[in-house]
């Protein structure tokens, strides 16, 4: 009996060891498949090598294998430029398409893209674009008709699929009227195809930032073949593009790849052969993969590094860590239609009574900048950054004694003896930590009672729209590089004005700025408008955002624009 028992033990052992060995077998297979995959890489190498010899630069030695590995925290919801509305789609579409203009990575200015040159009429309303000889990835020429077609797709009120970002095109004459059905004839809209290579665009108002807007994805052209195929953007094969890369692989929720488009007019500027994107929404995993060499870059805006790891990686990888201010602002807003926040003094007292730097040093950890105004650094106006011309320190400062006095005054005016209210934020550890700290500072510095309320995202947004809150967390990022993208949201009845704020003087300033083509006048109006906004303290600014990322030292050419949008099209790898 003993014997058979040990026999059984043997069998069990064999089973277990077998499993382990099978595991090792798996190892080898993988190594093999890795090797099998390399011929394709080698082929890619050849291509890259050829391009390199063409424009070999002295000191930088390019890696033979130009395959970039980048992670996306979320899957791009669409590859249709006219349907996109998020930063991940933006990053991918920027690789696949090009608009009339392109944004220069260093200066942020619009430079020729599909349009080789353009003329602007004296009143700033009519733009005539001259297109270059560019080709779609199927060999067709890119013509002015492709732009008119794409823009009509965006604005068409009877389109099968309505474009959520259609309002990005409302700068064109009659675009809004056509989109809302008031004008039914598209020829009334300010887009006119003069000939295959000439496009005339007429605007409603002179818009100094219009050339910059043209590099935005809603303005990209699409190939006319998409007309009869509603599902064209859902499959890899039916996407005809005019940008530096084409989409070559896509597995829902898993990965996608783009490969260099040899027909792109500036193909010699493109050194990357393939960019492989993984889709993983775990910051911890992304960081570990980066450290392990499975990724060439980690962090924002398309990836994520866990907040608590930021100070650590900053020290650990000083040569790979990059921090850049981006044009976004984090703030708390007041419901100014309900007591006690109808009183500006109370609002201002709250804004003065918190300490921003400790919040940044201990909670947000990303080197954000304390904010005392609404327009963030990076936004250009009249030839320089708005914030350089108008310091936000003039509006108010952190002053606890002053805040106490102001609060007492405000409470007296309202006939109150104590202040208590609810602060709401949407479910997120980051927002919660900030809310706890701010509430604590208010309590300690002003003796105010604050109840914290945590709401699910959808609920939170709906409550904000319905003015069903007292104080709420908010954030705003730029749609385009002009103070208007921040300041026009607080006009009376504005779609994004969910504070109930209404000030005719403010409305007038914004209206004046909108109708003026003179940058100096606009700058003056913006300055006056922001001052009113901060004097009324409709919103309480907390910090201006930064983008934190890790880039391997051998990855070059990745750029972020003023808003933090990433451009990978000119990226390449050095030998390493």
């Amino acid at each position, binding site marked *: 009996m003993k014997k058979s028992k040990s026999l059984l033990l043997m069998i069990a052992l064999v089973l277990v060891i077998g499993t382990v060995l099978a595991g090792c077998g798996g190892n080898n297979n*993988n190594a093999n498949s890795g090797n099998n995959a390399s011929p394709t890489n080698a082929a890619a190498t050849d291509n890259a090598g050829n391009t390199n010899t063409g424009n070999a630069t002295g000191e930088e030695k390019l890696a033979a294998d130009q395959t970039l590995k980048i992670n996306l925290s979320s899957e791009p919801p669409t590859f249709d430029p006219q349907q996109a509305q998020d930063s991940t789609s933006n990053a991918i579409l920027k690789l696949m398409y090009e608009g009339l203009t392109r944004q220069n990575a260093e200066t942020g200015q619009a430079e020729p893209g599909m349009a080789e040159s353009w003329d602007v009429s004296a009143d700033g309303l009519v733009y005539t674009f001259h297109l270059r000889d560019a080709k779609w990835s199927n060999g067709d020429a890119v013509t002015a008709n492709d732009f008119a077609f794409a823009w009509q797709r965006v604005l068409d009120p009877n389109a099968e699929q*309505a*474009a959520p970002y259609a309002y990005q095109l409302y700068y064109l004459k009659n675009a809004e009227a056509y989109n809302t059905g008031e004008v039914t004839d598209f020829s009334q809209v300010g887009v006119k195809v003069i000939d295959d290579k000439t496009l005339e665009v007429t605007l409603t108002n002179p818009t100094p930032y219009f050339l910059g807007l043209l590099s935005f994805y809603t303005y990209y052209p699409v190939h006319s073949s998409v007309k009869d195929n509603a599902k064209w953007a859902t499959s890899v094969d039916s996407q005809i593009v005019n940008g530096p890369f084409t989409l070559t692989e896509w597995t829902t929720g*898993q990965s996608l790849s783009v490969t260099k488009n040899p027909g792109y007019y500036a193909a010699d500027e493109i050194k990357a052969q393939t960019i492989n994107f993984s889709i*993983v929404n775990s910051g911890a995993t992304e960081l570990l993969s980066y450290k392990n060499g499975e990724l060439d870059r980690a962090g924002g805006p398309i990836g994520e590094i866990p907040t608590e790891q930021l100070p650590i990686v900053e020290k650990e990888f000083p040569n790979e860590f990059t921090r850049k201010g981006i044009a976004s602002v984090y703030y708390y807003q007041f419901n100014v239609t309900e007591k006690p926040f109808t009183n500006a003094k109370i609002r201002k007292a709250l804004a003065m009574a918190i300490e921003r730097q400790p919040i940044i040093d201990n909670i947000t950890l990303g080197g954000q900048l304390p904010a005392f105004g609404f327009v963030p650094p990076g936004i250009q106006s009249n030839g320089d950054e708005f914030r350089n011309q108008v310091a936000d320190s003039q509006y108010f400062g952190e002053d606890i004694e002053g805040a106490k006095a102001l609060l007492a005054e405000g409470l007296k005016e309202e006939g109150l003896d104590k202040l208590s209210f609810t602060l709401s934020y949407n479910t997120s550890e980051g927002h919660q930590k900030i809310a706890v700290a701010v509430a604590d500072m208010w309590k300690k510095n002003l003796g105010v009672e604050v109840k914290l309320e945590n709401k699910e995202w959808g609920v939170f947004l709906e409550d904000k729209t319905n003015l069903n809150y007292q104080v709420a967390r908010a954030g705003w990022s730029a749609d385009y590089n002009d103070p208007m993208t921040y300041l026009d949201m607080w006009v009376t009845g504005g779609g994004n004005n969910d504070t109930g704020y209404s000030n005719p003087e403010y409305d007038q300033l914004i209206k004046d700025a909108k109708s003026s083509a003179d940058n100096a006048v606009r700058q003056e109006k913006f300055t006056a408008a922001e001052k009113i906004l901060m004097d009324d303290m409709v919103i309480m600014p907390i910090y201006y955002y930064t983008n934190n990322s890790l880039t391997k030292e051998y990855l070059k050419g990745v750029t972020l624009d003023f808003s933090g949008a990433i451009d990978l099209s000119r990226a390449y790898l050095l030998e390493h």
Partner: protein
Amino acid sequence: MVRYILNRFVHMIVSLFVLISATFFLMKAIPGDPFTSEKKIPEQILQRLYAQYNLDKPVFEQYVLYLKNIVKGDLGISMKMLNQEVTDIISQTFSSSLKLGVVAIIVAIIIGIVLGMLAALYHRRLIDNVAMVLAVLGIAVPSFVVASLLQYLLAYHWKIFPVMGFKGPMNYFLPVMALTASPIAVIARLTRSSMLEVLHADYIKTAKAKGLGWFSILSRHVLRNGVMPVITYVGPMTANIITGSVVIEQIFGIGGIGKQFVQAINTRDYPIIMGITIFYGVILMVARFLTDVAYVAVDPRIKLAGRKEG
């Protein structure tokens, strides 16, 4: 048997109907919709989007419309992943979860039973103690801890496996280990206790007295009877594993159905929420049905027709 299956089928349809209705109305009761965002969409465009997905109709009408489409086998089109069929999204993401799940289930059953058998045969000896300590650990430590630990040690520290991805066989190891830690523990404990019971049963003594060899006693009598509780557990476990673990899929970067489901709820992607719920419902019901059939196969004393449905 036929009657039993028919019975089960009707039961399944009714359950599904209740599931669909409950999910539909609960989902509509959550505030917000797929088009709420911090940057608001102008009212007119919003109305057009609502009309496009029939969200402008009264909820009950939407419900009837949805049921009609379901009967036709049409789960609709995602509202967030534009123009993509819900069935395509489910089949693509489920295939990842299924591949991983099947491997995990096989590993869990084999290792779990072997460990349990060893522990029972060497009752109160070293192997037993070690196996049971491991089992307690496996049950007690949550899978995300196991996953992060494995990832840190085996992928980052020792560089044996990749941190994330789902391309080659190497990508299976870590998620399978993390997924199976707790099932292995449960199976091992179940096997051990039921085998201990069986080992002392009279018929085993009879078998020994008859002079049957140890191996045939084990394989014909002990294992067969000892494995019954395991089958009860394996049914739901299978359903649980192949429907995708959100935590594991997120940590190891696997584009599975669990991850998709959570994402759909966060973005209020109604058609995907409904589609995956129905899909989960069907899987659970099928798993339960198969468990019942497996009982009959292992234990002839159980008669399917005699069992009350439920």
